[in-house]
């Protein structure tokens, strides 16, 4: 029903899309952009773009990855055209021990440092849980490229976590 409404450019479908996919689109956009306001703009832009281009959605089962593809491309465009403002993580002033929070921040820091399209691949694979094939389609690239990007990204993260562990040993015994 939603897909038919999209293909018919019926605006009432927007409410349904927002309810079903809005938060996830915002999450994907935020993890790429690290800017909540810009991510919410991407949500609006994505849904309106979907309404405009509903007839391009050939497979009704692909609605979700199709929306995430639009959102990812919008976010990547926003990211490179914006003033590149970074949001800093709020850190405790005096961390006294290494915790899961450190690992989480380390991983997020690694994601932030990835090249934009690698970051998008990681977000789509591990946040949106798209398959490698769907990630490749969303980014307009091959599955092998995505696999390589994911492998390299994970390797960087593994190294960073390993370095953290080494630092922990050195500084806190």
């Amino acid at each position, binding site marked *: 029903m939603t897909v038919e409404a999209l293909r018919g450019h019926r*605006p009432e479908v*927007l409410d349904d899309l*927002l309810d079903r996919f*809005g938060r996830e689109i*915002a*999450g994907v956009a*935020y*993890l790429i952009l690290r800017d*909540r306001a810009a*991510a*919410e703009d991407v*949500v*609006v*832009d994505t849904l*309106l773009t979907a309404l405009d281009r509903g007839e391009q959605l050939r497979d009704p089962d692909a609605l979700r990855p199709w929306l995430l593809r639009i959102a990812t491309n919008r976010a*990547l*465009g926003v990211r*490179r*055209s914006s*003033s*590149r*403002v*970074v*949001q*800093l*993580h709020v*850190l405790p*002033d*005096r*961390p006294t021990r290494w915790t899961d929070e450190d*690992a*989480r921040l380390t*991983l*997020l*820091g690694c*994601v*932030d*440092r*990835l*090249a934009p*399209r690698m970051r998008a691949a*990681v*977000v789509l*694979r*591990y*946040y949106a*849980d798209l398959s*490698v094939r769907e990630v490749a389609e969303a980014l*307009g690239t091959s599955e092998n490229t995505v*696999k*390589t990007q*994911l*492998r390299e990204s*994970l390797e960087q*993260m*593994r190294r960073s*976590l390993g*370095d953290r562990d080494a*630092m922990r040993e050195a*500084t806190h015994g």
Partner: protein
Amino acid sequence: MADELDPRLEQQLRDALHHEADALPFLVRAEDIDRARRARSRRRLAIPASLLAAAAVVVVVVATVVFGRFGNGDIAATPSASVAATEVRLVGYEMLTAMLGVTKADLQGEHPVADPAGTPVTVELGTVSAPATVGYAIDCLGGHVTLTFDDGAGNPSTMQADCATQPYTAMAPGSQDPYRVSVTADPAVRWRIVMVAVAAPSPAPFHLATYEELEASLAESSIMPVILRGEHPVAETGTESVTTDLGPVGNVGFEDFAYSCTGGSIKIDKVAGDIVLNGMGTECSDNIELYTDATDTVDPAAHIVVTASPQVIWRVMISGAPTPSQEPTPEPPTATPSLPPVGTGETGLISMDITAADGSITREAVQPAGVDKYLLHASCAGSGTLELNIDGVDGYWDCGAIGTETFAPSGVGNGVYVVATVTGEARFLLRLDGVDLAATPGVTFVPPALAVQGDPVDTGGHSAVTAFAGCGLRWTPKAGGGYADECGPSWQAVPDHLVQKPGTFISISLADGWTITKVEGAVARNNAVVITHGAPAEQPWTGAASGDTWTFPAPPLGFWGVRLTVTATKDGDTFQVPYYAAVYVTQ
């Protein structure tokens, strides 16, 4: 398979991403989407200035009419909501015609009586000659209507108009032939419409921009070299679109386009084989237009192709630069230190500089006391890369990204060192903060470019000003991009030793080549700003002894936070640094 690399790490990553993104408040509402959709629809309607002027004059009248529906007895005396909806009188043809700024409409039609049980109703309005822009004014109740422009050649164009009372314009659907106009709506929708055909204005002589002009336009916003260009300078006949391959774009993932065209629309796509990787389509205008493909789509087989009708004449120029490889630079260039030395034991803001360089810069042996964690900010702009090694740990930034890293010194004996390796034409900023800045006495701010310090003259016994550069640093390179702290609404805490007495003098020292363009001060308590004050009003401050003075109004009695935000430029870069202090007013 990538999935099989490290299930535990992958799960950690999933958890981290969901923890980060799912905790965000989600504030987009259906109303926001609807508002954006309406705004987008309005933008698509190119309203001739004459019609706009007419509409502006008439809106007041219409507003009165709309209000009159409810206040002037046009509805039944005691209607129910549903009855009221059916009995509201539609705005008449004359008023709608007046909204278009004309005395006579070319077409008109209506469906004035709702029939909830019926089928969709289509009303033929008649035929409009093309090419033309049509203006129409509609009053509509109960939903929306769909306008259809049919040239009889199998190219009908439809447009949806939400119910309202207002004038619109619509572009002719592209045909050179007359086209029939009809309105279709749900039978429950009541509407009345008038339409005028506005002859297309005689176009001004079009000038197809030369390559030199396109290059000049590109140069205003792009620092990347021209990589491709192409043209279709003479209109041809025919109906099939013409696709022109401008050539391979290789591993370029960020392109700036400048184009000039007329006669219709063009598409500029990045394609690899049959796959369109990215693209844009646009109506031609009389101006040189600029467009950036910032999606960072890279494919070794990618080409740039331009597609347009044979009647369209166009000229396109593209600049771009290769996307940096993800591989670390194997052989760092020879070290070329250009930053001033950082003394052992220095705390707070350890180093900050922006520079253009091609080489390595090492900041070493910094071991501040009492600081056990650091926050490093790195930003890079340009076509190069920035690689950081912090205490032996590699970090990597390409110039399309910025990043923040936290780390701890590896040991008392080892100190902290940062090696920045810059390749290519990059400008970068490094900033290293001790996280427990506020707890460390004797903090001084030591950026090489700007310094706020106590005035050497007699200050009447008051303590000299000391301030620290806190959150709010912003760097805007002339080449684009930039960096900014995200500080949130709260002011930074000010340590006791930075509390000043009122009447303290401040001097701002400038390094060579810097110009202060703006100084803004604010006084606040509990994050509520009570005083703001800015200078200079006219002339920027240059040099260390410009002699400008600036008096900040005194706040009321009590303890107040003071933030002095200095904006300065050097070599086209803009640098904004907030300095925090406090003042205690006793009398």
